[in-house]
């Protein structure tokens, strides 16, 4: 058989990924010209929550730490905007920096609390921390407006404040930059070590890594970008409220990640887009929309626990294998275990 050399394969794969990403970016850039204003609003919201889901996945999908408290970071970002923009006239850039600093700091706190906790204990600890943050937001009325939240957040400080399209492009730019940074981070030695946390923490520790510090790094980076997502959402909605910090949001972002495919970099983003669209569509059709979404979640958990991208990668592998099928392989008994290296860059499963 005339097989291409491995080098060619990698090159063509990279090229294809670059082309796909480039086309996708062009489409996203052109959206304001074709979408009615309402759908542009929804698209901007998907960008913000997609960024949130991607940031969350650093801890969840890559670090293997099931955090149920990520709404705290998102809400923190929203409140930084709410407080800074209604009580001061700080420039936008300063607010972004403040958000990043606040998100990182809270991430460090989360990380330090979770130096050793694993699995269900980590889940409970992060939930408790987030509930504490929620309680603060609810009770510190002077600062946060209590259960009424902070409303009337204007985009005055934002570059080109008036137009919805301009804000969409700003959000798109911030999301693209954030995703690129996270992508690069996950491929850095620190990012690799974070993935190592998921694969085998004990082996990582045995090779001399200080596993605790990588947990803190993961939470810090994830927290910083989650806060940026909260910032975008607050500017978009014009309000910040305790529901930005609520348990429901923490659970929802986990569903985004799982439905899209938590083992993939772009899985959570896709999950956020799918669920937000579905939510909008179904709730317009019927008041029993929570029921429909519930069914989707259950079916996902039962039949698609590796998410949409996981399913696509799996089907692709099957197709590829079928074309290259030889009697010896069949005899050797093929397995259906996820084979990471064999997938496209876009749906890359493990950062090898």
């Amino acid at each position, binding site marked *: 058989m005339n097989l291409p050399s491995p080098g060619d394969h990698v090159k063509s794969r990279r090229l294809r990924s670059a082309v796909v990403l480039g086309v996708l970016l062009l489409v996203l850039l052109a959206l304001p010209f074709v979408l*009615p*204003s*309402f759908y542009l*609003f*929804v698209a901007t*919201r998907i960008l913000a929550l997609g960024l949130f889901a991607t940031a969350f996945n650093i801890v969840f999908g890559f670090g293997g730490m099931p955090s149920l408290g990520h709404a705290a970071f998102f809400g923190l970002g929203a409140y930084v905007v709410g407080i800074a923009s209604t009580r001061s006239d700080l420039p936008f850039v300063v607010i972004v920096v403040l958000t990043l600093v606040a998100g990182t700091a809270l991430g460090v706190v989360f990380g330090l609390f979770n130096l050793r906790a694993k699995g269900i204990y980590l889940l409970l600890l992060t939930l408790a921390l987030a509930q504490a943050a929620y309680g603060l937001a*609810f009770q510190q*009325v*002077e600062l946060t*407006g*209590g*259960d*009424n*939240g902070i*409303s*009337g957040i204007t985009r005055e400080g934002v570059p080109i404040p008036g137009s919805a399209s301009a804000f969409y492009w700003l959000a798109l730019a911030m999301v693209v930059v954030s995703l690129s940074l996270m992508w690069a981070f996950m491929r850095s030695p620190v990012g690799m070590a974070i993935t190592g946390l998921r694969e085998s923490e004990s082996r990582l520790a045995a090779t001399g890594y200080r596993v605790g510090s990588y947990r803190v790094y993961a939470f810090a980076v994830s927290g910083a970008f989650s806060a940026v997502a909260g910032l975008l*959402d607050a500017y978009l*909605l*014009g*309000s910040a*409220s*305790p*529901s*930005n910090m609520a348990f*429901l949001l923490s659970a929802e972002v986990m569903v985004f990640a799982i439905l899209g495919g938590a083992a993939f970099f772009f899985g959570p983003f896709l999950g956020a887009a799918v669920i937000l669209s*579905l*939510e*909008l*569509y*179904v*709730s*317009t*059709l*019927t*008041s*029993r*929309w*929570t*029921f*429909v979404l519930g*069914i*989707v979640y259950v*079916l*996902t958990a*039962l*039949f*698609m626990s590796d998410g949409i991208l996981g*399913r696509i990668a*799996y*089907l692709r592998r*099957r197709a590829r294998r079928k074309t290259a099928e030889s009697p010896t392989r069949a005899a050797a008994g093929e397995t*259906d275990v996820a084979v990471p290296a064999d997938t496209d860059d876009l749906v890359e499963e493990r950062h090898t």
Partner: protein
Amino acid sequence: MSKRRATRPLVALTAATLALAGCGSQAPSSGGVSADSGSGSAQEGANGSLTVGLLNPLTGPFAALGEDVNAGFELYLDSKGGQLSDYGINVVKEDPANDPGVATTKARQLVQQEGAGIVIGLVNSGVAYAVAPYLESAGVPLMITVAGADGLTRTKGGNLFRVSYTGSQDTMPAGDYVCKELGLKTAAIVGLDYSFGWEASGGFARTYEDAGCKVVQELYAPLATQDWAPYVTQINRDADVVFAVTPGSDAVRFLKAYRGFGLDTPIFAQGSTTDEQLLPTMGETADGVMSSLHYSPVIDNPANKTFVDAWTEKYDRSTNQYAEDGWAAAQALEAALSDVKGEPTGDGITNAMRNVSIDAPRGALRFDEYGQAIYDVYMRKVTKQDGKWVNKVVDTVPAVNQFYTYDVDEYLQFPPYDKLKGTWAK
């Protein structure tokens, strides 16, 4: 795993989603949860038509309230054959899902996609605060039917109107009444620990103390407190009256604990604590509880008779303030539309709304210059009537506005109630 087995779940998932989405679908192209009345074809009246966006919760903790508001609105609309002042009314319902993010999205959907000319609804004040600025900027009037935060109606000449109460509006007359008419000189306040609890308690405490009586204790419990025993046992037994602001399911548990511990201090409550949605559940425990509210199903006037008859015929249960809020909102809209000439624009409806004066089931209703309703407030007592527990009207305070008897400018200088919380008993 064979290929067939691998694809089956995907197919099942897709099919199930589509099937379920299809279940609720009635008119996908027109969008919106279709109204019971007049769904399908667009209503066209002699003067034109108007799309009304009902933005009330259909899921979550406030679903029962939201559904009653919607039902009240649609009942009035039905009784007028789907037209208000010869404008055909197309109702589109969306669910704010008790979340400011979803609610803001839904408000935009109503206005930008469904072409709503007015948005009516909102239960959660946090959601109302988030949604109001958008509707203001879009020039679409907003009529609030439940959300009670005082601060929502503090801007003159806006496009926001509210037929329901502000947190303190219905309790301010109560402070006066309990001190002067009932002669109960010391009060212990039991409230829920969030804005509405502070505002309702604060309104009572302000007038109660200004009338010369004394608040001796303030207790605040978190929303959805399961065990009321620790709070009930703390209540100062020397107080002449317990003033309670415990709406919703908290009311049921509070009263149960209160009776269970054998407290016999009379209770005066903010009216939502003895709401008709709760009375059948509370039963004996609510016996004799007094409260103040702008509505009771047993008010004796022709408008209320029409409303109660229409409601009980359709739903076979008591009316309540939420259903009346919806009904009154429809009446107010009808009155406003009768003043609008031609195309019902946002500005046109807003301007007409300012001069609205109607005979609602609750009695006379009009709006102040801040958009807040002025109405009679009733002093009520839970009594058994024909085998059913009702809020019997024992006294009426006419034409109560959101500032009660205080001078507006003076009132607006007062610190907000969240800052005053905890200071009344000192």
